[in-house]
């Protein structure tokens, strides 16, 4: 009877290993290095996007523009804020976590295509640089949505708008290669014993997300190509004066961009399932339903894009989109209720990761509710294009995505670095973030419905009080992120050393050292029969180190497979 024991406690990042840090600045095929590269890059862009947000809120302290920046610069600032946060922060951060964790979670040595993986990351760098260069040569001022004719060559002379389109092209290619990589990896490279329904829910989430990326991003590439034709080749595809159709742009843009918001939230939902189960010490309630709801959201997400266009679509074409947008609330609700069922009757440990996960629950439900309000065509007529939408999107993208990102960060930091993030500072980070966020975004619902449109450098003076409150909240929120960065850097250098399995989790990443060795696992990893089997005897046995083949044979009926080595010979 062969037994595998949990490896000895790792020594984390000792000074001797610090020289290995240089590998993070160079081309590496190791998915763990690439994952860290993604994360550090994206968290840098978080600071830039956040600084832009502070500039926005500072300018909105007074009803007339000009306190800090003039109107044109204001338009550029929020256009860059949106673009950076979406394409250079949220999406790459989840790709970074996925890159690091998915091979570990499924027991593989690396991703299916390591070279492509590195290439996908290194595309981010020139794309980000192009976007920032665009600021210098004349920034885009048409919002991250870049509607024509405003974003066309007549009304946006700035080359920055063209560079924006090129930058997004590069980011799209990076995303697409990443998605293919994840899909092939998850399908073909799971360790034996891990059937589809033994996969951790973060893997399901990344699988669903990759399907969305695969299908949606090329559509954006098509739209950007047409935009570049209009801006550079003198064509008039979107210009109505010569027979073009300005409404074509919102259609192709939102066909991608609505699924894009699910790209930005579904991975976070996967993280939620991991964190809630581990820290409530209970299985995920309704594992199959949550797994399948990720797939349902992925598919349904392609049928709702018209709800961004309720005020410019031909009236009767709005109704099908209203119906699909309402329907998509159901799989989302299944997840929320499933998560509540997970913590109900659990034994909750309030680590910072868990607090961010619970914070997600409390904030995302508000965003979901306002989403259903927006799905109704008549109500949307009041809310569209106003601060109500800004509130909704930040509740789901900050209260949702960013909170889940922080939950993942506090959860997986020990695995990635071998050190804990400081819990005390983490809790300070959480509370300032939560309070600042609520103060900033909750009032926006009101100002929006009462008549304050979005993307305005100046506003009717009657909204000044709400705007001052909102800005105050935003400054608190902004300042509140500083503890996180200090924590991360300080912990990296001198944080408390973390063992292989600091949280006593059942998923495969915790069966190897912190940080893992280059080949990820010693020997063939054997997954727990149930990755969320907290409270079961098999789960307890697995945590105690009993991962023997005989146990697997007993429970499986016959022995699972080991993969062969990679075949030699043949061409690449």
């Amino acid at each position, binding site marked *: 009877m062969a037994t595998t024991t949990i490896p000895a406690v790792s020594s984390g990042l000792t000074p001797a290993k610090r020289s290995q840090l240089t590998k993070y600045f160079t081309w590496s095929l190791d998915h763990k290095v690439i994952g860290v590269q993604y994360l550090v890059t994206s968290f840098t862009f978080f600071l830039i996007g956040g600084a832009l947000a502070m500039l926005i809120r500072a300018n909105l302290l007074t009803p007339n523009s000009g306190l800090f920046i003039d109107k044109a610069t204001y338009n550029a600032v929020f256009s860059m804020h949106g673009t950076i946060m979406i394409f250079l922060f949220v999406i790459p951060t989840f790709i970074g976590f996925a890159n690091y964790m998915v091979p570990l979670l499924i027991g593989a040595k690396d991703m299916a295509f390591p070279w492509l993986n590195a290439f996908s990351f290194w595309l981010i760098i020139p794309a980000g640089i192009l976007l920032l260069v665009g600021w210098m040569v004349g920034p885009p001022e048409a919002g991250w949505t870049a509607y024509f004719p405003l974003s066309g060559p007549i009304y946006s002379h700035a080359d920055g708008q063209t560079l924006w389109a090129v930058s997004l092209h590069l980011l799209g290619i990076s995303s697409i290669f990443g998605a293919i990589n994840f899909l092939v990896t998850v399908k073909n490279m799971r360790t034996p014993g891990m059937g589809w329904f033994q996969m951790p829910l973060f893997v399901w989430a990344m699988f669903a997300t990759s399907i969305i990326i695969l299908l949606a991003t090329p559509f954006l590439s098509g739209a950007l190509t047409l935009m570049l034709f209009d801006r550079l080749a003198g064509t008039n595809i979107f210009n109505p004066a010569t027979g073009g159709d300005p409404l074509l742009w919102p259609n192709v843009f939102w066909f991608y961009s609505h699924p894009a918001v699910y790209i930005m939230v579904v991975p976070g939902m996967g993280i939620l399932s991991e964190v809630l189960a581990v820290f409530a*010490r209970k299985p995920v309630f309704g594992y199959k339903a949550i797994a399948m709801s990720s797939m349902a959201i992925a598919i349904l997400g392609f049928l709702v894009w018209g709800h961004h266009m309720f005020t410019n679509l031909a*009236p009767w074409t709005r109704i099908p989109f209203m119906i699909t947008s309402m329907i998509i609330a159901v799989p989302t609700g299944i997840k929320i209720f499933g998560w509540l069922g997970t*913590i109900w009757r659990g034994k*909750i440990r309030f680590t910072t990761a868990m607090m961010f996960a619970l914070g997600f629950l409390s904030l995302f439900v508000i965003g979901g509710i306002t989403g259903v309000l927006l799905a*109704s065509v008549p109500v949307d007529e009041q809310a569209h294009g106003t601060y109500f939408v800004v509130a909704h999107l930040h509740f789901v993208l900050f209260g949702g995505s960013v909170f889940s990102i922080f939950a993942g960060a506090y959860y997986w930091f020990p695995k990635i670095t071998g050190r804990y993030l400081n819990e005390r500072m983490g809790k300070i980070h959480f509370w300032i973030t939560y309070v600042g966020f609520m103060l900033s975004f909750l009032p926006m619902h009101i100002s929006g419905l009462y008549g304050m*449109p979005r993307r305005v450098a100046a506003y009717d003076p009657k909204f000044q009080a709400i705007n001052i409150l909102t800005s105050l909240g935003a400054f608190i929120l902004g300042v509140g992120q500083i503890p996180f960065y200090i924590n991360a850097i300080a912990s990296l250098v001198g944080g408390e050393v973390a063992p292989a399995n600091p949280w006593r989790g059942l998923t495969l990443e915790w069966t190897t050292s912190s940080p893992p060795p280059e080949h990820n696992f010693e020997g063939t990893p054997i997954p727990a029969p149930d990755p969320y089997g907290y409270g079961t005897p098999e789960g307890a046995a697995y945590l105690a180190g009993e991962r023997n083949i005989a146990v697997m044979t007993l429970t499986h009926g016959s022995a699972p497979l080991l993969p062969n080595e990679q075949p030699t010979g043949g061409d690449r």
Partner: protein
Amino acid sequence: MDTRTIRRLGLVAIGLLIAGLFVGATNRFLPKPASAEAQTVSALFNFMIVIATIIFLIVEGALLYSIIRFRKKDGDETDGPPIHGSAAIELTWTAIPAVIVFGLSMYSYQVFAGMQEDKPNTLVLHVRGQQFVWSFDYPHDPNVKVLSSAELHVPLNTPIRMEIEAADVMHGFWVPEFGVKQDAIPGRVTEVRFTPTAAGQYQVVCYELCGNGHGVMRNNVVVEDQVHYDAFVKSLEVHPPAKPAPGEHTAEWGGYVLQSNKYGCGGCHYLPALNLAGQVGPSWVGLGDRAGARVKGQDARTYILHSIIYPNEYIVSGYPANVMPQNFGQQMDDTDLNSIVDYLLAQKNQTDTATGQKTAQISTP
């Protein structure tokens, strides 16, 4: 489930219902409706708020309860009960939201359908959105020339259909108190319907990003009785003066060009004498008195001329650069341009409505 649990759940359910109805009935999330459509949308909204409140309280309540009741006890390092799910519960919380969203879709559809058809005696008005002002055209006696106005006037209790156009980029037509919204799309005519039911002053706000001046693209809206509305439309009638011969220019022609809103000046500049109500740029009241003293070396005529064709050359303090179109020099013909300057030069000895002072006495800023 035992009777005690059922009773408890029943009490919770009743409490939730009361809370939901309370918020639905008393909330002031929407502005006071000033149109029939806003009233029906308000009712729909409040209905949705009732449901939203209940769901909100259930989720947040369960969350809060769990955080308090199910926290790990000190010293207890064991795991929780291995509950993987429950088909009955999962089915319930799938079916109930499905029924709710189905119901909301039906109700929303009903409200929507009621806003799509012309009602009897609909008055059709035209509006054009351009950077950064709305221009309204009113139906009138076809034998008389009538100017566009930068203000929207509508008669009370009359069904209105706005035909909406865009001159340059996409804009968005919205009066918050009327509860309806429609994009203005270049190359198309879009429409929106409403019936104003409360007299008063409102604003039509652009909500679709249209450039630098998007935030100041707000025009006045007046809902008034039929008599005042008719009087307003009558006041837009013009009997145009004769256009001066090429090479010549008159103040009378200039005043007519400005009032006709041909170049959209009234959207940003204020001059009550011509019904111009713009707030974006400097007021023209008494401009003739101060034009000569604004810029050293420029006489009054040159100053006004340059202000039109090189707007960024001198910016009056407190006003933004880069908002006024830079191409009036190409757009306007010489007669129009010089006549406008004539007219503005003649704006002297007026009363500044803000300060009550005579403009001849106002020193240069």
